[in-house]
């Protein structure tokens, strides 16, 4: 989706988005001419909004949480793949 649609779906102001992209909290697909966002980016923006707004986490805290959440998902992915491989081992 384009930037405009993303801002609507994620409920963000454009300045906030720029800040979050700068912090690498969001990593949209950027080329020389356009920037596009995925559903994953929308869901991640919702998470950051919850953390900042509802939970009162400050910017440093967001960095730490996102890094840990990303590692946790990395682990879950690896775990899932292992689970599949054990159920039907690759030749």
């Amino acid at each position, binding site marked *: 989706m384009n930037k405009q649609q993303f801002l609507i779906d994620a409920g963000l102001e454009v300045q906030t988005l720029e800040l979050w992209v700068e912090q690498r909290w969001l990593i949209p697909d950027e080329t020389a001419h356009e920037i596009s966002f*995925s559903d994953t980016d929308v869901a991640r923006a919702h998470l950051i909004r919850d953390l900042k707004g509802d939970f009162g986490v400050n910017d440093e805290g967001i960095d730490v949480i996102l890094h840990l959440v990303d590692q946790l998902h990395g682990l879950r992915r690896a775990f899932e793949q292992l689970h599949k491989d054990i159920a039907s081992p690759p030749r």
Partner: protein
Amino acid sequence: MRNPYEVLGVAPTASAADIQKAYRKLAKKLHPDLNPGDKAAEDKFKEVAAANDLLSDADRRKRFDAGEIDADGTERPQHRYYRDFATAGEGHPYADSSGYADYMDQDDAFAELLRRSEQARANRRGRDLHYSLAVDFSESIAGASKRLTLPDGGTLDVTIPPGLVDGQVIRLRGKGMPGSGKGGPGDALIEGEVRPDPRFAREGDDISLELPISLSEAVLGGKVNVPTPTGAVTMTVPKGSNTGTTLRLRGKGAPKVGGGHGDEFVKLKVVLPKGPDPALEAFVSNWDRKGFNPRDDGAS
């Protein structure tokens, strides 16, 4: 829904600050994205969030306390949580294997399995890169070689195919972002923007041009130079040509798909010399063709 005070675990007399504190405490524990493996977290979190939405709104809390509204209908609109994408999605930029990288370095069957699944994910094709390139009209017809300077300072040599139309995309395989592992690089996609030429207009494979000629060339005929996208050519203007007379230069248009070329259509336009010309005036006064009226279509 359960009583929102019970859900948050606060007394009905609790202050707004107490309610926020209680909500944050529960929400931090229950947020689905902080509990990716707990399927029940989402429902529990929703209940807590709805209770907070009701009680943190002073006006609605008052009406609830007065028995005017109940706790139902306060559910938040459904949205998908990050956890629904983060684990399943292949190739999103947030994937991070540093949580188990040390296990992959080991020398056993478990590490082998991890490495293999990592590799499967790692072999991704690079992204395509999009550029645009301005092309002169004549280059768009005849084709050209151009060098594109990239934002990062690098260059790309682009061959403009003859007959390129405005907006046509040229794909350079493998010139996009590098892939990872065996994924191979993406492509560079270059959109050609044809700069219009005030002399020429293109219609399909044909091009047209308006060519000014003098009165004597129109009356007596003669050879004139005509610009084409591939350089000037000599064309014979037949005797007695007029403004609007269209001549065809075969094969001087854009290349056709499947071979051959379109034509260039040259529309003549008789142009008188600028300013007063006593000689021409004297000649025309003497030249008197009785009965010629160009506005007379013969109907009267």
